[in-house]
C-alpha cells in the first residue's frame, strides 16, 4: 500500500502521529544515506515524530516538519524521499488537530501514544496479590496484601509493566475518560 493510502485509510483506533512515526522509521531512506535531504531529513522526521508521541514536542515542530518536507520533496535524490515528505505534508493538513493535541500535550485521541495515557487499578478486580508492585520499577504502586493497590499518577512513567504483570486484568489504560478508583488502599472485595 502506498504511504498516502495508508494515511487516508487511517482507522479510528490508530493515531496519525504514531502511524507516521512507524512509517518514517521503516522508510527506505533510512537504509540509504546517499542524499542529505533523504537521510538526514528522515532522521529529523523520526526524531520529531517520536518526541510528539512521547509528549516531548516543541511548539515549533509542526511548522518545522512542514518546512523540511517541502524541501525534501524537491531536493531528495530519488522518489522515496519525495513520497515520504508528501505523505507527511498531507497528514499534517488532514489531521492538523491531532498533531496540535500532541504538541500541546493535550492527549492522543486514539489512545495509542502511551505517554498520554494513565494506568489504573480497578477496585472490583484487584486481589491484592502484589504482582504489580513487584513489576513496577518506579515504585509508583502502593498497597498491602488483600488490599486494593493504588497507582500514584505522579510517580508513574506509563511503561505498562504493571498491566503485563497483572493476571486478574485489574489494571487498565485510560485516555481522556478515567475510571473511578479508590484514593488509598481499601480491603479487597474479591477473595479468591
Amino acid at each position, binding site marked *: 500500500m502506498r504511504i498516502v493510502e495508508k494515511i487516508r485509510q487511517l482507522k479510528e483506533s490508530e493515531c496519525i502521529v504514531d502511524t507516521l512515526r512507524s512509517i518514517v522509521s521503516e522508510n527506505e531512506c*533510512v*537504509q*540509504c*544515506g*546517499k*542524499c*542529505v*535531504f533523504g*537521510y*538526514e*531529513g528522515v*532522521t*529529523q522526521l523520526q*526524531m*520529531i515524530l517520536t*518526541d510528539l508521541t512521547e509528549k516531548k514536542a516543541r511548539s*515549533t515542530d509542526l511548522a*518545522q516538519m512542514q*518546512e*523540511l518536507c517541502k*524541501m525534501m520533496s*524537491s*531536493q531528495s*535524490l530519488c522518489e522515496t524521499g519525495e513520497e515520504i515528505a508528501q505523505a507527511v505534508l498531507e497528514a499534517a493538513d488532514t489531521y492538523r488537530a491531532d498533531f496540535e493535541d500532541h504538541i500541546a500535550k493535550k492527549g492522543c485521541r486514539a489512545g495509542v501514544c502511551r505517554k498520554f495515557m494513565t494506568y489504573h487499578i480497578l477496585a472490583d478486580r484487584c486481589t491484592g496479590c502484589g504482582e504489580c508492585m513487584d513489576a513496577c520499577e518506579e515504585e509508583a504502586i502502593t498497597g498491602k496484601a488483600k488490599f486494593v493497590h493504588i497507582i500514584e499518577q505522579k510517580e508513574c512513567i506509563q511503561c505498562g509493566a504493571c498491566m503485563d504483570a497483572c493476571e486478574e486484568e485489574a489494571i487498565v489504560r485510560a485516555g481522556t475518560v478515567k475510571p473511578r478508583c479508590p484514593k488509598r488502599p481499601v480491603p479487597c472485595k474479591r477473595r479468591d
Partner: protein
Amino acid sequence: MKITIDGKVIEAKEGQSILEAALEADIFIPHLCSHPDLEAKGGCRLCSVEIAGQTGAVPACETKVRDGMEITVEGETASKVRKMAMELMLASHPADCTGCPKYGKCELQSMYQYMGVSPQGWRKKSRSVPNDDSNPLISHLFTRCVRCGRCIRACQELRGVKVLDYIKTPAGIRAGIPEGKSLAEAGCRFCGACIEVCPTGSIMDQVKIMKEERSYAENIVPCKSTCPAQIDIPRYIRYIKEGAFDKATAVVREKVPFPETLGSVCTHACEQQCKRGELNAPVSICKLKRAAAAGDSGAWKGHVRKDAATGKKAAVIGAGAAGLTAAYYLAKKGHDVTVFEKNEKAGGQCRYGIPAYRLPEEVLDREIQTMLEAGFALQTGSAAAAPKALLEQGYHVVLVAVGTHKGTKLPLEGNDLPGVYVNADFLKNARMGTPLPVGETVIVLGGGNVAYDCARTAVRLGAKKVHMICLESEAQMTATPDEIEEGRQEGILLHPSHTFHRIVGASHVQGVEIQKIEKFYFDENRKPVMELAEGSSQVIAADQVIFAVGQKPEGTDALGLALVHGAYIQADENLKTSMDGVFAAGDAVTGTKSVIEAVAGGRKAAEQIDLYLGGDGDISEVLLEQEVPSAYIGQSESFASLKRVEPAVREASDRTSDFCLVEQPMTCEQAQCEAQRCLQCDLRLHLHRTKLWNEYQGGV
C-alpha cells in the same frame, strides 16, 4: 561558450557542469560531495543555484552549462536549500571540531564557517562509532562521516579496488567495509585515495606515519623523500611492474649515475620508511633497482643532457662515488672536468672498500665507463696537486672528495702487535688480489657493515673461525639485519654487548681479552657508562685482529684547507671550504656514510660549483617523458599478504670459498612480481587537491 554567474560573465566549456565552470573561473560555490576527480552525485545540495527561466534550485555539480545561461548562486530558494542542507548535516555531526584531527583542514568546517550556519533548531543525532586503528596505515574515525560518498566513489570507480561502500550499522548508514571485514581481508590496496578525498576527519593517515618534520608530500611518499638523492621510487617501480625495465632505469638515472652499484650495495633507508612495511614487509626497493639496471639497454642515453661548453675548468680530487657524480653532472653542464685518482682505478670505497662478493669489479667498471661518456677526463694512479696549486694551474674550481680511506685503531694495549690490521687496509688488499695473511682464527672488532665485510672476507681468505666482537647489543648494531643473518650463515661467531680490554700477545697477536657488558647507558652528563658482568672476562685466542671501528680521511692535512674533528674537511652548507674556489663533498666532509649519501653529496657539489662558475645550478635531467599513471589500479587478490620476493642466494657452504656474487639480481619475473607489492602511494598526489573557499578570489 559564455555563461553568467551572479552577473559576471565567464568562459565555460561544453560538457562542463556549472560548478566546474565556476571553480575554474575562480568563483566559489559551496560544495561538499563533489570532487574534481569523481563523478558528481548531487547528494549534499550545498551547490544549489538558481537558473534564469527555471523555477526552484538545482545542484550546480549535476547541471551542465548551456551557452548564455544566467546563474544566481545566492538566490532566495537556493540559499534556503543550501542552508537547510548544511544544518541537517551538522545536526548529526560531532560538534567538537577542536578535538578533530582534521581541524583547520576540514572541508565541512570551512564550508559551514563560510556559510555562517549552525544546526540550532534541529534535533541533534549522535551516530557514534568507536575509532578504529586496527588497520595498517589508515585510521577510521567514522563518527565524523557525512555520507558524501567520496571515499566510496574513489575506491569503487576511480581506483576499481571496490572495498569501501555504504554500510548499515546500528548507528546508521555510513561509509565502511562491508561484512565486518578488515581492510586487508576486503582486498584493500592501501593506495590512500579514500584518505585523500575525505572532506572531514573520518578517514585519516595514521598519526605515526605523518612526521612533523616532513612536508605533506614527503609524508605521503616517504620512500622518495627519504632517499638522499630523491629518486622517484614509486615511478620506477611502476615501470618494473609493467616490465618496462628501460624506462625504470631512466627514472633512476635521472637522479643517480650508478643504478646497478646502488642496487647492489645501497643502505636503502627508503625501505625502512616504505609504507608496505606496515602491512608485512617493505617493497624490495633496492633489489628492484638492481634488477632494472641489470636489464638496461641504454635507451635513456638518447635523452642525456649536454650543455654547450662553458670554457670553465674544474678539477675533482678523488674518483669515488661523490667525485665521479660531481664530475658527471659538471661535464653535462658544459664544464671541462678532470678527475684525479690516487689509486690505480676509479671507484673509491666501491672499488677498494666493498668486497667483490657484494659488488663485482665488472659492474663498477661498466658503470664508470658509462659515466665517462658524459665527457670528463679521468687520471688514475696519479695523486693530484694541492687545491691551491690546481687553481694556479688554471682550474677555475676544485672539488675535494677524497673519502675516508684510513682505518682507525682504538687505543688498546697490544694494538700495534704484528697481526693487528685495520678495516681499510684489510679490505683493500683483499680486493687488489694481495690479501694480508689470515690464519686459523680471526677476530673482528666492530659491529657495523664494514665489520661484516672484514669478517666475511676473512672467511673467504681461509680463516676457519671468525669472531666478531662489538659493544652494541644485536638490536643496536649498525649492521643491517641481512648482513647479520648472512654472516651467521657463514659461521661468523658474533659476541654482541662485549667490551675488549686488550690484545694479548708477546711478539704477535695471540688473542683478545673481552668481557660481557651488563648495562650500557649515558649518564646525566651524557657520558657513556658501562657496567660489566663480573667474572665474565675471557681471552679469545686469535691469529689476527682486525679493527673495524671507523675510518677517517687520509692526507687531508696537506691540502691547505681548514679541517674539523681532526682530519675532516671543513665545508659550509654549500660545500665551500676555507679556500675560495675549493669545494668539498662526500665522506671526507660528512664522515663515513653510504654510497647514496656520497652520490647526493656529489650532486649538490655539482650544483654549487655550477653556480660558482656562473651557471644556474640546475643539473636536472629528463631522461623519460612524464606520463600520468593510471588512476585505476583494480583488484588484486590477497594484496596485503603478498610476500616479499627474495632473489636467489648461493648457499653459505658454496659461497664462502670464493669472492663471486652471493646474491643474484632478481629475474625479470621476480622483479615484476615484487613490484606488484608497491602501494603506489604517489598516486594520491595526482589527485586534485580540493581548495577551501578562502583560496578562491570570489570567495573572500
